[in-house]
């Protein structure tokens, strides 16, 4: 460390104490991935243009590539994926939009990529089904906002939720630019008279806990299945259509890296600077 840098850090530290936003102290504050850093290679990034602008990646960062054409053109595939996800994770269905909880859902182009502008839109684009979910961002703003570390980033880049730690402040919902988080406004474990939970269409999956009311939840990239060497449920539901490819985007030899190199992909809201790990081929 040369003298100049040390001096700078000293000043930065002092100003931090004084409550002034010195850049270095601020970066420390912003380390959203306080629990488990995925390598800390973020500082070198200069542009918010997505993964392309990033310096040498370190550590694992799981990601997902979604081939929108394949999803749209294989009839019923989107619904199958959603069903697989929601069944696997006991996602309740309250039957009204106000209390809705969703981990994986579809929307049209306009409302998935509101910042992309077009003139005379490509006809095919109108009917495309975009599968939306938590992007497991590399610099997740939800993790930065959570006051209890109930939302945290895993070593493998997955943004996880600790339902028992969550105080239900919903700060993370305000912070996520993708609307990827849902809150249990009501008790998902409300029971029917005959002892069955009311808001689950299917028998419960005993492998995954149900939640209580008052906590936030979202997609977790099927962290539990990954630990058993399985693929995420939605990816499995796609079978060999190749509509979804999952893997470590930091490993140049992985299949997903190959797909990313060979195709033109877009991410949602790259200007948010969160570096989403979900990519769309359109």
């Amino acid at each position, binding site marked *: 460390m040369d003298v100049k840098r040390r001096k700078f850090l000293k000043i930065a530290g002092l100003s931090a104490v004084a409550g002034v936003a010195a850049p270095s102290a601020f970066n420390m504050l912003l380390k959203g991935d306080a629990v488990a850093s995925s390598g800390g290679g973020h500082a070198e990034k200069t542009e918010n243009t997505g993964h392309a602008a990033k310096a040498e990646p370190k550590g694992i960062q799981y990601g997902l590539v979604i081939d929108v054409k394949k999803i749209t053109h294989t009839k019923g595939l989107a619904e199958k994926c959603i069903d697989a996800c929601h069944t696997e994770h006991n996602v309740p269905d309250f039957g009204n939009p106000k209390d809705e909880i969703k981990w994986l859902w579809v929307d049209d182009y306009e409302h998935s990529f509101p910042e992309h502008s077009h003139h005379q839109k490509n006809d095919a684009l109108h009917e495309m089904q975009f599968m939306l979910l938590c992007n497991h961002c590399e610099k997740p703003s939800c993790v930065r906002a959570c006051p209890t570390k109930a939302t945290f980033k895993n070593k493998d880049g997955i943004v996880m939720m600790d339902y028992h730690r969550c*105080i239900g402040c919903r700060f993370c919902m305000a912070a996520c630019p993708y609307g990827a988080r849902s809150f249990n406004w009501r008790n998902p474990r409300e029971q029917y008279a005959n002892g069955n939970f009311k808001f689950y269409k299917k028998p419960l999956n005993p492998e995954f806990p149900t939640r209580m009311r008052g906590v936030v939840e979202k997609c977790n990239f099927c962290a539990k299945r990954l630990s058993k060497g399985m693929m995420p449920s939605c990816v499995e539901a796609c079978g060999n259509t190749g509509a979804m490819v999952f893997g470590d985007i930091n490993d140049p030899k992985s299949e997903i890296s190959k797909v990313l190199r060979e195709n033109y992909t877009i991410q949602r809201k790259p200007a948010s600077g969160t570096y989403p790990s979900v990519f769309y081929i359109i």
Partner: protein
Amino acid sequence: MLEKALSGKSGYWAWILFLLGMISIGGLFYVYQYINGLGVTGMSRDVSWGLYIGQFTFMVGVAAGGVMLVLPYYIHDYKAFGKITILGEFMAIAAIAMCIMFITADLGQPLRILNVILHPTPNSMLFWDMLVLNGYLFLNVIIGWVVLNSEYKDVPPPKWTKPLIYLSIPFAVGIHTVTAFLYCGLPGRHYWLTAILAPRFLASAFAAGPSLLLLIALLLKRVANFDAGDKAIQKLGTIITYAALLNFFFLGLEFFVGYYSQLPGHMHTLDYLFFGLHGYDNLVAPMQFSVFIGMTATILMLFPQFKKSHRNLAIAAGMIFTSLFIDKGVGLVLGGFVPNPFERVTEYYPTVPEIAIVLAVWSAGALILTVLYKIAVTVKNQNA
């Protein structure tokens, strides 16, 4: 000193009983919400914060506004505020107590609130907000009580209160700045993502807090035989005028940036709040009303002849307070959520339980304020 709160005329007790009644009604609704979850409110997946957080934000401002008395009195030795500085400090206590109640009402898991302390998370602005809010509350409780107690005993306040008083000044600015940071550090929410949010918050706080104080001071003159003095009242009016002017100037800057740049994200919320967006216009009437009454009152206050009459002052302060209440307590939070970041609009309607709980928190704040002011006024009148 506390016993001073226990004797009063029948009007005093009727008021206390009324407040207790409101608190019990809201309390019952809170129990209902506690049992059934936040589903009983009008909030939804898109609009995930509503009245509670809006009111919280506004009350932080009222609390911070107390500093507009502390600063001239202690730093510039402005004697005219001698009688009412304590009222400012006590108002801050009541306002912060309300903030804490609003936050608690808004939590999905209120019993876990200690997690914020057990797992300190410096990257979260909420953590810092908790620190400054509690710090400010603590400072005001100590300072207010000790200073008043000394007055009661007719001795000068102990020396050690001075540094605490000076410390309370940056804390007042801090609570509202950090509360603005809760909003303006979030990507994807254009209405909040503006560097002028903290200045806007402070300007509106320095108008809203003193407005409330002015109203209370005029009320105390009538009901409690406590005269703050015309000089102090006029000065408060001046402070309110300039803070409100700044507030509307800052609002104008937001309009310029939004509409001159023509950036859709920056325009959408302003469109929704002030003119209606795709036929959704729930908040247009209140927001236009807010700007209208706020600006009218501010302009009137610029005329010295208008300001001379206490009745005029009370009306103008009431208008400014209402204006800022609508703007910050309702529009600010909803504006950030209702047009969601995906160009969809989900409107929000507060429910009966939600409104009852909000009224109960206001009543609880008023109760704290009444009791504290009762003590302060009795002590002051005794020594006068």
